[in-house]
């Protein structure tokens, strides 16, 4: 099983010797300071500040239209906030484009699936490895050694993810034809393929049935646990998030109205007000 042995993602599975590197909350990895964002006149975010610590699961919740997605888009460089700064592992940046953010180890999934419809599950996840690919266009054209080897090596990593997300049976199906719940997994897989230090999940459970939600929760916890990935996830319904996240930020109308551990937040009157005030 030569090929099976050298997997970057393959879980080091000796429970006796591993001193659980995961789940030990570390230092601040992402620090968002006084972010404000506006489209034309419309203010999407006003003076938002919060931080994310290494290996933690950080939830950003809030009613629909609270500015959650905008926040995410600021963090990974899709939008450029007008004010404020975002520090990633200590280094501050105002204007970083998506690629630079991606290159510095931030991956994300999308609320309304942004998969590459025309491609298979395998290829979709493979795109997540492109940053890691080095062979030049000529080598690829003639499938010369380097390119071929690289392709196989990356495929191996991607297979690790497919195995992890339990979608082996769909490997070569075009994503467009798959059930919604599974497409969400592929979206997650594509992000995982980047081996991110920080993983942003935009409403990972939106539009899922209970069973699918449970699966997704399991995957999120496993990712955080197996790979020690820091996770920032957005959800608009509190229930699911509270169980799996370490700390929660609550947004409403683009402002931060709460921040803390789930039970603290749950008790916060402002939060309760915001939620009672908005229909679900």
């Amino acid at each position: 099983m030569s090929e099976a042995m050298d997997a970057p993602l393959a879980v080091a599975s000796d429970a006796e010797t591993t001193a659980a590197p995961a789940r030990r909350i570390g230092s601040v990895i992402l620090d968002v300071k006084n972010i404000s964002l506006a489209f034309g006149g419309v203010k999407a975010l006003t003076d938002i500040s919060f931080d994310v610590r290494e290996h933690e699961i950080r939830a950003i919740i809030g009613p629909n239209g609270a500015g959650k997605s905008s926040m995410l888009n600021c963090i990974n460089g899709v939008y450029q906030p007008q004010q404020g700064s975002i520090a990633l592992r200590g280094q501050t940046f105002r204007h970083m484009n998506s690629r630079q953010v991606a290159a510095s180890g931030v991956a994300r999934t999308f609320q309304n699936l942004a998969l590459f419809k025309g491609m298979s599950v395998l290829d979709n996840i493979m795109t997540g490895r492109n940053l890691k690919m080095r062979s030049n266009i000529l080598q690829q054209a003639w499938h010369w050694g380097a390119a071929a080897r690289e392709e196989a090596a990356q495929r191996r990593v991607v297979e690790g993810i497919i195995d992890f997300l339990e979608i082996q049976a769909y490997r070569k199906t075009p994503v467009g034809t798959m059930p919604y719940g599974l497409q969400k997994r592929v979206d997650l897989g594509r992000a995982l393929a980047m081996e991110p230090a920080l993983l942003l999940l935009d409403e990972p459970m939106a539009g899922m049935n209970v069973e699918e939600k449970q699966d997704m929760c399991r995957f999120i916890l496993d990712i955080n646990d197996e790979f020690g990935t820091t996770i920032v996830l957005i959800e608009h319904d509190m229930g699911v998030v509270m169980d799996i996240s370490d700390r929660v930020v609550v947004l409403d109308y683009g402002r931060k109205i709460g921040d803390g551990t789930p039970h603290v937040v749950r008790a916060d009157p402002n939060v309760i007000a915001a939620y009672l005030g908005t229909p679900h």
Partner: protein
Amino acid sequence: MGFFLETLLGGLMAGMLYSLIALGFVLIFKASGVFNFAQGAMVLFAALAMARFAEWIPQWTGLTHPVAATVLAFIAAGFVMCVLAWVIERLVLRHLVNQDGATLLMATIGISYFLEGLGQATFGSSVYKLDIGMPKEPILVFDKVFEGGILINMEDLYAALIAAVLVTGLSLFFQKTGTGRALRAVADDHQAAQSVGIGLGRIWVIVWCVAGIAALVAGMIWGSKLGVQFSLATLALRALPVVILGGLTSVPGAIVGGLVIGVGEKLSEVYLGPLVGGGIEIWFAYVLALLFLLVRPQGLFGEKIIDRV
């Protein structure tokens, strides 16, 4: 000096025609999101129809009055264009609702091929003379103001005037009338439009008719100048940069763009052409538009496009 003004004027007059064609593009794009590549073919088709009807109607009806014949021919051709619009909506557009722009564009290229074929098959493919009684001899004006004066080609002037009238008419129709507003509603949001009970199909037929008439007029004018022939189809391609320049969704854009391109072409041809071997008006407009795109992708008056995730 006089020569410059002359060129400028010529450019403006040519530009009016471009504006007319461009307006056709804009109307259709606004209302149906279709970038109608077939506009050129429609010009050719309309011109052919017009020319031939003008020739046939006297034979059929035996009426000799030239003006009446021309008018009848115009009406007949206009009718044909409307039927065409209806057929296109029926057979093509309604099957491609909610397709992306690229697909629709390619579809219209298909349509334009079809029209070129059909037009020449039914109306013949040789060069036809089309006389709508526009004065041919130029007149000299401002010869008092500075020596040499300015030579104005009356035909162009009339052409420009007709075009101008039509353009203003269309813009008014588009901005003021109920149907016009309906068109704009559709343009802004198909679903919404349908929900308030504006029939997409009907709207589309209307805009295509309007575009057809615009094409007819343009074809008629060009036809009477250059004779009705295949090259009219490509002539209309020259109006494309106008749309790019003016912005696909903007009526004023189409007008301004048309004038700019018209003038630009003439000036460049006259002052730049000799330096590089002439004939540059074919591409100059395009390159102009292209450079402009790099600066302002949505055109002079087009709305900004924002990607949402």
